[in-house]
C-alpha cells in the first residue's frame, strides 16, 4: 500500500467511524429531551427510565465521538499538512466556532448526566436540550468546513498563492447550506431509524413491551419525519452539485456524454473504458430535470472533464445509487408509519410494521456512509476543488500504512466493544429500567 492510498484510507476510516458516533451523539439528546419532557409533564416514571436508559447510550456514543473527533482535528495535519498550511486560515472559522459549540455540549452533558435530583428539574431538562442544540450546531459547522473543500470561497488564488483571505466568506461558501441541511436531516433519519429498529426488535421479542413501545414511538416519529424531508433536501443538493461540481454529478450518475434531455441512470455497472453503463434502467430527461429542473436542459458529461480531473466513477456511482435507494425505502416505511398513526391505528399492532423497522435499523447509517463517499470520492482528485490536488497535500512522512493498520485495529476493536456494550445495555433493560419492583 503506498503512502498516499494509506493516508486516504486512514482519513476515510476515521471520518467513516466518527460520523456514526457524532450523528447519534447529536440526535439522541433530542429524543431524550422529549421523553424527559413527557416525564416532567406526566410524572410517568417509565419516561424517566427511558430518558435514563438512552442517556447511558448517549454517554457512550458521545465519548467515542469526542475522542475520534479529537483524533480527526490532529489527523488533518498529520496526513494532509500541505492542505492545512494553506486551508487552515481560510476555512478555520467554522472550526473555531465549533470548538465553542462542542465545549458547551461537553459542559451541558456533564450537567445533564450527573444532574439527576441535583438541580431544579427544568434547569436539568434545559441542559439536555443544550446538549442537543450545541451538538447539532457543531455538526453544521464541521459540515460547513467540508463544504468549503467542495466550493472553495473567501480567497483569491493567484500564481499559486492564496490571497485576499476572508474567513467569514469562506465559512458561508456556496455549498454549506445544502450540505448542512442534507447532513442534519440524514443524522435524524439514520439515528431515528436505528433506535426505532432496536426497540421494534425488542417489542417483537415481547420483552418490556410498554417500555420499548414508548421508546420506539419517540424515535420513529423523529426518524420518519426526517426520512420524508430528506428527498427534498436531496433535490436541493443535487441541483446544487449539478451547478457547482459538474464532475461529481457526472460521476454520481455515470453520465459519460454531455447531452440535452439527459437520462437518469438507475443502477447498472459503469464501463469506464467504453464509456457506457450496462444493465441500467434509464429514464429519459430525468437527469436534466433532477440537475436543472428542466427536462430538456443540457447536463455536462464526463467527456467534458479532462481525464486527470475525473473522480473514480464506479465508486461514486454505486455509492450514490445505494444512498438514494435506501433513502427511498426509508421514505416508504415512513409513509406507512404515518398512515398507521393517522388512519389505521390497527397497523401499529401489526408485526409486519415492526419488522419493517427492524429491517431498516442499519439502513440510515449505510446511507450516511454512502453519501459521504459520494461527496468525498466525488470531489477527487481534488482536496480543494479545482485548486489543490489531494496527492499534493499528503504528508512527506513514509510508512503511513502502519499508522493506517494501527488505527484500523483500534477502530475495529472499539466498534466491537461498543456493540457489545449496547447489547448489554439492552439486555439489562428489564432489570434496570422496566422493573415493576423498582418503580
Amino acid at each position, binding site marked *: 500500500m503506498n503512502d498516499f492510498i494509506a493516508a486516504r484510507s486512514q482519513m476515510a476510516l476515521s471520518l467513516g467511524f466518527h460520523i456514526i458516533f457524532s450523528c447519534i451523539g447529536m440526535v439522541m439528546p433530542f429524543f431524550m429531551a422529549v421523553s424527559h419532557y413527557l416525564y416532567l409533564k406526566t410524572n410517568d416514571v417509565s419516561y424517566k427510565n427511558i430518558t435514563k436508559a438512552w442517556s*447511558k447510550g448517549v*454517554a*457512550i456514543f458521545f*465519548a*467515542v465521538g*469526542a*475522542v*475520534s*473527533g*479529537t*483524533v480527526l*482535528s*490532529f489527523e*488533518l*495535519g*498529520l496526513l494532509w*499538512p500541505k492542505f*492545512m*498550511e*494553506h486551508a*487552515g*486560515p481560510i476555512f*478555520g*472559522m467554522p*472550526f*473555531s*466556532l465549533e*470548538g*465553542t459549540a*462542542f*465545549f*458547551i455540549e*461537553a*459542559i*451541558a*452533558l*456533564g*450537567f445533564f448526566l*450527573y*444532574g439527576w*435530583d*441535583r*438541580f431544579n428539574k427544568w*434547569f436539568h431538562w434545559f441542559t439536555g436540550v443544550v446538549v442537543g442544540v450545541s451538538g447539532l450546531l457543531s455538526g453544521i459547522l464541521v459540515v460547513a468546513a467540508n463544504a468549503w473543500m467542495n466550493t472553495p470561497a473567501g480567497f483569491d488564488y493567484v500564481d499559486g498563492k492564496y490571497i485576499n*483571505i476572508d*474567513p467569514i466568506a469562506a465559512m458561508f461558501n456556496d455549498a454549506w447550506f445544502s450540505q448542512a441541511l442534507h447532513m442534519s436531516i440524514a443524522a435524524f433519519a439514520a439515528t431515528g431509524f436505528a433506535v426505532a429498529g432496536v426497540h421494534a426488535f425488542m417489542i417483537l421479542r415481547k420483552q418490556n413491551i410498554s417500555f420499548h413501545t414508548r421508546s420506539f414511538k419517540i424515535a420513529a416519529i423523529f426518524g420518519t419525519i426526517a426520512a420524508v424531508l430528506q428527498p427534498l433536501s436531496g433535490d436541493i443538493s443535487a441541483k446544487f452539485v449539478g451547478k457547482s461540481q459538474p464532475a461529481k454529478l457526472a460521476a454520481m450518475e455515470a453520465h459519460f456524454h454531455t447531452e440535452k434531455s439527459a437520462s437518469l441512470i438507475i443502477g447498472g455497472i459503469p464501463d469506464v473504458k467504453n464509456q457506457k453503463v450496462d444493465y441500467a434502467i434509464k429514464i429519459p430527461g430525468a437527469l436534466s430535470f433532477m440537475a436543472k429542473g428542466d427536462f430538456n436542459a443540457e447536463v455536462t458529461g464526463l467527456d467534458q472533464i479532462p481525464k486527470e480531473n475525473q473522480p473514480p466513477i464506479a465508486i461514486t456511482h454505486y455509492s450514490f445509487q445505494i444512498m438514494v435507494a435506501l433513502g427511498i425505502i426509508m421514505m416508504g416505511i415512513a409513509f406507512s408509519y404515518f398512515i398507521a398513526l393517522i388512519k389505521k391505528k390497527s397497523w401499529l399492532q401489526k408485526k409486519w410494521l415492526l419488522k419493517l423497522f427492524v429491517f431498516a435499523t442499519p439502513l440510515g447509517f449505510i446511507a450516511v456512509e454512502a453519501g459521504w463517499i459520494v461527496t468525498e470520492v466525488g470531489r477527487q482528485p481534488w482536496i480543494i476543488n479545482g485548486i489543490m490536488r489531494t496527492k499534493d497535500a499528503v*504528508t512527506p*512522512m*513514509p*510508512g503511513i500504512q502502519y*499508522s493506517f493498520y*494501527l488505527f484500523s485495529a*483500534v477502530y475495529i476493536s*472499539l466498534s466491537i*466493544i461498543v456493540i457489545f*456494550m449496547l447489547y*448489554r*445495555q439492552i*439486555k*439489562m433493560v428489564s432489570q434496570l429500567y422496566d422493573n415493576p419492583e423498582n418503580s
Partner: protein
Amino acid sequence: MLYVVMIFLWTAILLYLLLGGADFGAGIIELFTSDPNKSKIRKTMYRAIGPVWEANHMWLIITIVILFVGFPSIYTTMSVYIHIPLVLMLLGIIARGTAFTFRHYDAVKDEMQQVYNKIFVYSSFITPFFLGIIAGSTVARRIDTEATNFLDAYIFSWFHWFSIAVGLFTVAICGFLAAVFIIGQIEDRQERERFVRKAKTFNIAAVFCGGLVFMASLYEKIPLLDWVFGNPVGITTFGLATISVIFLWRLWDTDKTNLMRLLAGFQITMILLITTWKHYPNIILLKNGNSLSLLEEQGNAKTIDALGWALLLGSLFILPALICLIYSFQKPKEKVKRQFEN
C-alpha cells in the same frame, strides 16, 4: 487581536495542563495504588472527575484549533516532524476516554471491568507522557526540516533524553495535581490522609523528575539552565514556585483545601511561564537555528481578527458554564439542590 489569540493559546495550554492534567493524574494515581485500596480510590476519583472530565479535554481541541487556524505553519511543522508521538498520544486519548466511559456505563459489572481499568490506567500514563515528549521536542532544537533520512527527520526529532525527561515530569505533575485536587473532595478523614500522602509522593516525584529534566538538558546540550536562571523573570518565577511548594507543605494537615489547590495550580503556572517566557514569541526551535515565531507565522491578519473575536465570544459562554459546572459538583448533592431551589 494577535495578542488576544496568543493569550488564549497560552491559557488553553495552561488550562489543559491543569484540568486535563489533574484528570490524567487520576488514572496515574490508580496505576500506582496497591490493590486493596484500588476500588475505594476509584470511587472517590470517579466522583471527582466524572462530571468534568470531557470538558477538561476540550482545552486540547481549543489549542489545536488556534494553532491550525491562526498559525498553520507551526501546526503543520509539528504534524510532520513529531508525527509519531502525536499518533501515540492520540491513541492514548482514544483508549483513555473510551475506557473511562465504558467502565462506568457498562450495564453489567463483570470481569470486563478489569479490562477497562487496565486500559484506563496505562493510557492515563502514556498520554501525558507523550504530551510531555511533544512539548519537550518543540524546544530541543532537534526538529530538522532539512533532514534527508527517516531517522533524523521523524525519530530523532523527538526521541532524546530531554523530551523523555519532560514526559516523565509531565506525568509526575499530573499525579500531583490530581491528588491535590481530590483532597478537597473528600470528607472521610482516613481517605483524605491517603490522598495527602499521594500528593506528597507525587510532589517529590515531580521535583525529582524536574531534576532529571535539568540533567537531560545538560546531556543534550540544551541551555535550560540559562533559560531558567539567566534572566530576572526566570529567577523570580522559579523562586515563587519554590516558595509556594514550601508553603504548600505546611498546609497538608489543615482544612485549607482550596488554598492547596491554588498553590499547586500556581506552581504549574510558574513552570509553564518559565519554559515559555524565554522563547517568546518563538514556539518551535529548529535544528538549523531558526525558530517558528507566533508573531511571524500568523496565517492571515483577517483570520486572526475573526479567530480572536470567536474566542472572546466563545469564552463568554464557556467560562461561566464551566465554572458553574465545576462548582456545582464540588458540593454534596443536597446542598446544591437546596441552593438551586431557593
